[in-house]
């Protein structure tokens, strides 16, 4: 069967959605556009899923002259990402139908819808293009449309974040373009397969330079530390369904690009490159997770958690590169499988969490966790699905991200003793850092859920929270269900995306098999459920269920108020203390005595200065250097016309000298 028609139809539908939003009258057509987008992306998701299930490895979509003969094709890898993109985009469009209507007076709905469709189209195009020209065109479509989406609410903070994002993403795109130009010898129309052949004949130093350009280009898009500073600014400012797309899917585009470039195009030569990737990955994971723990803005927590997750994925890829350079192809294969499984898990749970954060922000009228709380009582079903997503994000069994970490760490430990001492050292560092990050990720997610959803509401708005509309809630439920599904059916999914050697099929189920260790996630899931039921039944049998009364929480005889509760700041205070060398937060307590006679009776103002160390250490000096240079250069502009002519002449001579 030919799926290429359906993939093209999906692209056309997305384009049509953008067009419809352009021509529709102001304030109308929102539902039509979002429904159209949901249909077209749903079609794309189904087409790519069917392609993956069919077991084919290549599918040519089209190749037309008027797009400079860029071949459009799906491979197993791009089909996987195409599926993730379209599934999340489909659910995000359904979510957007009611979500955007809540904010109709803030956003320009027509423009928002049109840009969202173009954004999705850009990402679809990135995955389908298999030549630098198409790849870069769609990459820019994706970047620029998301730049406008970040500043959709037109607030000063959003505009600032969007401009920052624009600069970073264009530095990255410039690096990718430069990498392509060096590889192909100044033609960007050669397909990737041809680039791979050309790369064989380049000297190692050039290839290393190209690799660094790609690492910067894709790493800055993926939010790797230290190129991440734009991410926690830009992702939270966008509307929540756009945040979900940016965090859940757009980061994966960078991952996809990096995977294609490092494993299909560039020949792997040395372990230096791998060590750089591992170092950046571990740095991102640790830095991201510490800030995810101490941040108090719900969407910033999620943005930092994305940095952490991308750090883990890049660490897995770095390990794969490292062991591949040592000739251990099986190990590398497993590590890539784990990274892809983690990417699938992340696409679903992070999109769900961002969409849920949109509901929380709408209920509390603020992004601060400090004014939330009590949602689990007011929106029980929604909070249940958020609990599942948060536990999945914390990589707890039996959910999706855990299976990826199990695969990776099990494989790492199994192969540890057969390595050279240097590689062993690196792998032990990876192992313990990932364990530390796992512990702290649990902290961050429990803080998010515990402070955001449990106990008494901390503000008037939160106290009057209503359960979200069905159209808003259903995509979140669907993502929570997908998270459970990916966890329970991890072996099946791995076998579909080309990692069948990591699985073994038995009569009624598929096992994960990594280096002789087998795990059947379904059995794990069933055992946990069965034990839960055992406890449930035992409690019914052994004690009287109805024998209870409600009363307020005991608090030393005082009435309980939300002021007694722990806040997100207080909850994360031990971690802030233990990692104060890294975070360098500043705590300010200003005490002003109320009574002159008694200094103990004082009103206190507490503030916490969460500083971004990379911003202070790296970006502010760069900014100062740029400003200083431009001040110096401005001295040339002294109003003497002869001087300007002399400068033009010198510039001409220098240019000609270089060119000839």
């Amino acid at each position, binding site marked *: 069967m030919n799926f290429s028609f359906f993939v093209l139809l999906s692209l056309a539908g997305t384009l049509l959605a953008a067009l419809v939003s352009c021509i529709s009258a102001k304030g109308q057509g929102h539902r039509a556009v979002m429904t159209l987008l949901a249909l077209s992306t749903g079609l794309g998701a189904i087409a790519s899923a069917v392609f993956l299930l069919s077991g084919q490895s290549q599918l040519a979509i089209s190749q037309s002259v008027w797009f400079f003969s860029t071949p459009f094709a799906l491979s197993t890898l791009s089909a996987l990402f195409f599926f993730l993109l379209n599934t999340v985009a489909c659910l995000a469009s359904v979510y957007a139908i009611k979500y955007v209507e809540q904010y109709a007076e803030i956003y320009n709905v027509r423009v928002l819808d049109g840009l969202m469709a173009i954004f999705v189209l850009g990402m679809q195009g990135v995955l389908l293009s298999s030549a630098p020209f198409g790849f870069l065109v769609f990459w820019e479509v994706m970047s620029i449309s998301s730049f406008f989406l970040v500043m959709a609410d037109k607030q000063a903070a959003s505009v600032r974040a969007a401009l920052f994002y624009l600069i970073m993403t264009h530095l990255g795109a410039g690096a990718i373009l430069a990498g392509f130009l060096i590889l192909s010898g100044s033609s960007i129309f050669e397909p990737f397969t041809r680039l791979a052949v050309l790369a064989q004949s380049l000297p190692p130093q050039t290839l290393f330079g190209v690799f660094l350009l790609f690492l910067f280009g894709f790493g800055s898009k993926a939010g790797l530390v230290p190129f991440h500073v734009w991410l926690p600014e830009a992702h939270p400012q966008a509307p929540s369904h756009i945040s979900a797309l940016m965090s859940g899917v757009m980061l994966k585009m960078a991952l996809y690009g990096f995977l294609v470039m490092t494993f299909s195009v560039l020949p792997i030569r040395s372990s230096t490159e791998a060590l750089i990737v591992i170092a950046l990955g571990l740095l991102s994971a640790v830095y991201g997770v510490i800030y995810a723990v101490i941040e108090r803005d719900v969407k910033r927590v999620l943005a930092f958690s994305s940095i952490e997750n991308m750090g883990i994925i890049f660490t897995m890829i770095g390990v794969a590169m490292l062991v591949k350079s040592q000739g251990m192809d099986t190990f590398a294969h497993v590590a890539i499988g784990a990274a892809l499984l983690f990417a699938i898990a992340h696409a679903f749970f992070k999109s769900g969490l961002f969409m849920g954060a949109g509901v929380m922000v709408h209920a509390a009228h603020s992004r601060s966790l400090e004014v939330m709380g009590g949602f689990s009582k007011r929106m029980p079903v929604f909070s249940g699905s958020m*609990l599942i997503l948060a536990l999945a994000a914390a990589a707890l*069994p039996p959910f999706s991200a855990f299976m990826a970490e199990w695969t990776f760490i099990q494989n790492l430990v199994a192969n540890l*003793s057969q390595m050279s001492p240097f590689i062993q050292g690196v792998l032990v560092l990876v192992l313990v850092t990932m364990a530390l990050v796992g512990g702290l990720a*649990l902290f961050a997610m429990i803080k998010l859920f*515990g402070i955001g959803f449990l*106990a008494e509401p901390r503000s008037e708005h939160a106290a009057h929270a209503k359960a979200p509309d069905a159209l808003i809630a259903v995509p979140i439920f669907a993502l929570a269900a997908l998270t459970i599904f990916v966890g329970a059916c991890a072996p099946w999914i791995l076998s579909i995306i080309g990692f069948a050697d990591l699985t073994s099929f038995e009569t009624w189920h598929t096992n994960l098999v990594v280096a002789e260790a087998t795990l059947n996630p379904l059995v794990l899931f069933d055992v946990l459920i069965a034990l839960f039921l055992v406890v449930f039944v035992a409690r019914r049998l052994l004690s009287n269920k109805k*024998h209870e009364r409600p*009363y307020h*929480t005991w608090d030393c005889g005082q009435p309980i108020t939300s002021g007694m509760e722990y806040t997100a700041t207080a909850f994360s205070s*031990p971690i802030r203390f233990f990692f104060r060398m890294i975070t360098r937060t500043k705590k300010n307590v200003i005490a002003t005595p109320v009574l002159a006679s008694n200094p103990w009776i004082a009103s206190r103002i507490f503030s916490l200065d969460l500083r971004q160390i990379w911003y202070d250490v790296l970006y502010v000096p760069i900014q100062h250097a740029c400003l200083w240079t431009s001040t110096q250069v401005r001295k040339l502009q002294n109003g003497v016309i002869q001087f300007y002519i002399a400068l033009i002449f010198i510039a001409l001579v220098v240019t000609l000298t270089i060119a000839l």
Partner: protein
Amino acid sequence: MNSILLTLVQFVATLAIAPFVVGLVRLFKARLQGRHGASPFLPYITYATLLKKQMVISKSTSWVFRLVPFVVLASTLFLVCVLPLVVFGGALSHLGHFMIIAGVLALGTAFLVMGGLESASAFGGMGASREMTLASLVEPAMIATFATFAVVTGAFTVDTMFASANILTSPALLPAIAALIMIALAENARYPVDNPATHLELTMVHEAMVLEYSGPYLAMLEYASGLKLTIFSLLVANVLFPMTLAVDATLIAIIMALGWMIIKVVIVSFLLALLESMIAKMRFYRMQEYLTIAFFFALAGLVFALIHITL
């Protein structure tokens, strides 16, 4: 069939003995401190009484508060099923990968923390924050410890790891066992990490989280923490003396294993009580030092093991 029987024996025996271990530690501690102490069988009566009592549920709480005791107890029961406590080679021991053990422990802790936060009081929040911190710092030490066992023995489940771990032939296990003991103390909220006997708000971690629970729910949580203490006591004893476990389902082997189990819990309880009577509790904000030591013990074991294999 054999393995199912073995698992059943372990399940029933561990569940039956758990309150006795809690009572025994209290008795030994009382004797060491010059008090007469209550009977070691008192916890059985305490739990039975709690099951009959009326529950007081705080008005601030939601469905999560009611879910917590079930998940905490179920996650502990999972550990009873998969770990080698009384027998080797149980029916579910293939699920005992160290990542899963660490994950399920973390799952139970996460829910306990949410139960603490649900009460909306400062005590619950404080205990929750502290427990979460401890759990997130114990995790790397635990993974490193079990990774050492995996590297030394070449096995993946705790069951096979312990069955083939021999400290006489692989001394690299010694630091890992030291780390395991330190982790066991931290996981069970014992000295020097937490004081299980106190209700003084400034020192408590575990007790602060369960403060708002009463009646059957409190019984479930207390029973879960007693089970966890039993599990870790037996684990530490089994790694040193793996020959005391039953490997096949003959009557004699099972009776021997059960006898050994009682001897092991008595000795471990005594040592725990001795330890708790000799040392003081650490200040909470120095806890990262304790856990860093545990972590570096585990790491040292891993490095020694790798050097040992390479040489």
